């Protein structure tokens, strides 16, 4: 199993001081290599969920088990490195670091995992997303679609077990949307990577075998039963 959420509670402290419950998930899992799409209304907590799974956010309670280890109980330093080696992330926009070329952005993805940097694999990934001829271009010289393809390549650089994608095609023209979606799905399949993708596009969602609606398994009101952190 790639991902297992148990009794996860997450609420935000509002500026006024009271708590806004966002996540209350009793059980959620994703098998190795499984691909699921996550649908939900705006402000429903999709991004919060992805950030909790990646360890960028720590839930108030519960456990987030990725590839067999619970992120919540890890010290932050260990969690950061664990994220580097197990989880790939693609955001909606501005994924890349402007100071680095496409290739360097991918290599940077390898830098913090503690493993040796694999130049050949980085090139292979970029070729795979059709950017073999753009290796040394900086993000400012790449189209938005190309940037997003670099981000996809980078998210797979450490051969993760889990790829989290937060509306990766929302800012891209329809022709490219399909291309990138296919790219993500195909590479995940080829590398046995589990995929959890947030989208607002029904057209995209329909391609997935497993479609999850957040409000069906998320019950924020559960936060009130346990003490919030």
């Amino acid at each position, binding site marked *: 199993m790639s991902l297992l959420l148990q009794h996860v509670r997450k609420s935000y402290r509002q500026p006024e001081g009271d708590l806004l419950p966002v996540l209350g998930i009793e059980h959620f899992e994703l098998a190795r290599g499984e691909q699921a799409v996550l649908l939900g209304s705006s402000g429903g907590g999709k991004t919060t969920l992805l*950030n909790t799974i990646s360890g*960028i956010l720590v839930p108030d309670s519960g456990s987030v088990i990725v590839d067999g280890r619970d992120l919540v109980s890890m010290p*932050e330093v260990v969690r950061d490195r664990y994220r580097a080696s197990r989880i790939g992330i693609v955001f909606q926009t501005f994924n890349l670091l402007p100071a680095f070329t496409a290739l360097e952005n991918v290599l940077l993805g390898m830098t*913090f995992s503690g493993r040796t940097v694999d130049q050949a694999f980085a090139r292979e990934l970029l070729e795979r997303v059709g950017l073999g001829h753009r290796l040394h271009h900086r993000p400012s010289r790449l189209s938005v679609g190309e940037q997003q393809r670099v981000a996809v390549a980078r998210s797979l650089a450490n051969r993760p077990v889990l790829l989290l994608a937060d509306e990766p095609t929302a800012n891209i023209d329809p022709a490219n949307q399909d291309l990138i979606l296919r790219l993500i799905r195909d590479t995940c399949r080829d590398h046995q990577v589990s995929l959890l993708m947030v989208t607002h596009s029904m057209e995209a969602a329909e391609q997935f075998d497993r479609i999850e609606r957040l409000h069906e398994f998320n019950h924020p009101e559960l936060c009130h039963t346990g003490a919030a952190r």
Partner: protein
Amino acid sequence: MNLLLIAWKNLLQRRLASSLTALSIGLGVMLMVLVLVISGAVETAFTQRSIGYDLIVGPKGSDLQLVLSAVYRIQPPIENLPAMYLDELRNDRRVVTAVPLAFGDVTEDGSFPIVGTTDEYFENEYLPGQKFSFQSGGQRMVQLFDAIIGADVARQNGWNKDDRFSILHGGAEGSKHDEKFTVVAVLAPTGTANDRTVFLNLDGFYAIDGHEKPVEEIEKRLRDFYAADADRLQQALTELDDYRRQLDAQEQTGTPAVAPRAMQEVTAVLIRTRPETPFDAISFSADLQKGFQAMAVNPIRPIQRLMTNVVGNVQKALMVMTGLIILVSGVSIFVSIYNSMSDRRREIAIMRSLGAGRHHVFGIILAESALLCTGGACLGWLTGHALAVIASPWLIRRTGLLISPWNISPWELTLFPALAILGILVGFLPALTAYRTNVADALSQ
């Protein structure tokens, strides 16, 4: 990719801001290097043994002024001594050599100092163990208006053997002496003030029209000088009376009057005592201390005093100022990096999402400011020394100051660690901001 390389790429991304801040540090360091090189040169120039004599005798007054004018030729001389006194010094058993110097005039071209002296000056060592040699011309001032010139004078004025030139009285404009002098020899470079000096035959110096003072003035001076030595005073007054009669006769019959020894003066006397009895120099100057109106000065000591009291403090003040300039540049680096931090929140968040720890982003920002500081320092250090190389021929020509452009003072060795520390101090707060970045918030922007 290691953190240093990442920091470097980030700096390249903000090329203009980075190079400007590094430049400001570099300018500060360059100024500091120049201050160090030049003050180092001043210090060695003035504290080294700069003359091959043990003592300089001159009229009582400022010992510093005596040394600056007799050795470095950069001060107008004080009073004069009677030439009779030179004869006395020569008779002292402790004195091996006594070389007279008379000065006060400058050349019309280039305003080089004029020194009247005897051939003895060129036979003796100008620095311990160093004898004069000549790059052209004969070696003696035979004729009254013969002159020997230093290497810089020759180069700068384009003078060579057999060239003729005029001199100005007391350096004043418009009071050109009528006499023309002829170059008979050019000295090889010595690296001392001799290179900038024009030497005249002492007798020629006396013979210059207008150099002879009125008999009354001389008499008054001799009465002062020899107030405690009735015998010598009497002898001098007799000579002066005789000379007055000659001058009267000259007006009536035209028979030229010959100035007696009592009429002649020297400005300073260079003394060498016997090396095997070093105590001679001490007892000699102690004797002069007691006596009339002359003093014997060790040529190094007043200069050392000047160095520590004045030049040393000026150097310190300049060092503090350049240090402050570097500090201000440090603050500008701080401002530049700190300002960029809000734009870079998302970049930092992306790195964190790629698995970089807080300590990684902290280290990257710190490395950026350390790179700027040490990079700027290297740049400034190199340009400082390069400027010293370029300026050194000019400096020698203008001031006679011989600088060693690549001489590295111990201060400079502390410069690089100090700037690395400055970089770390300056980068600390921005790095802390990076360390504290809330990743989820920054990503949602």
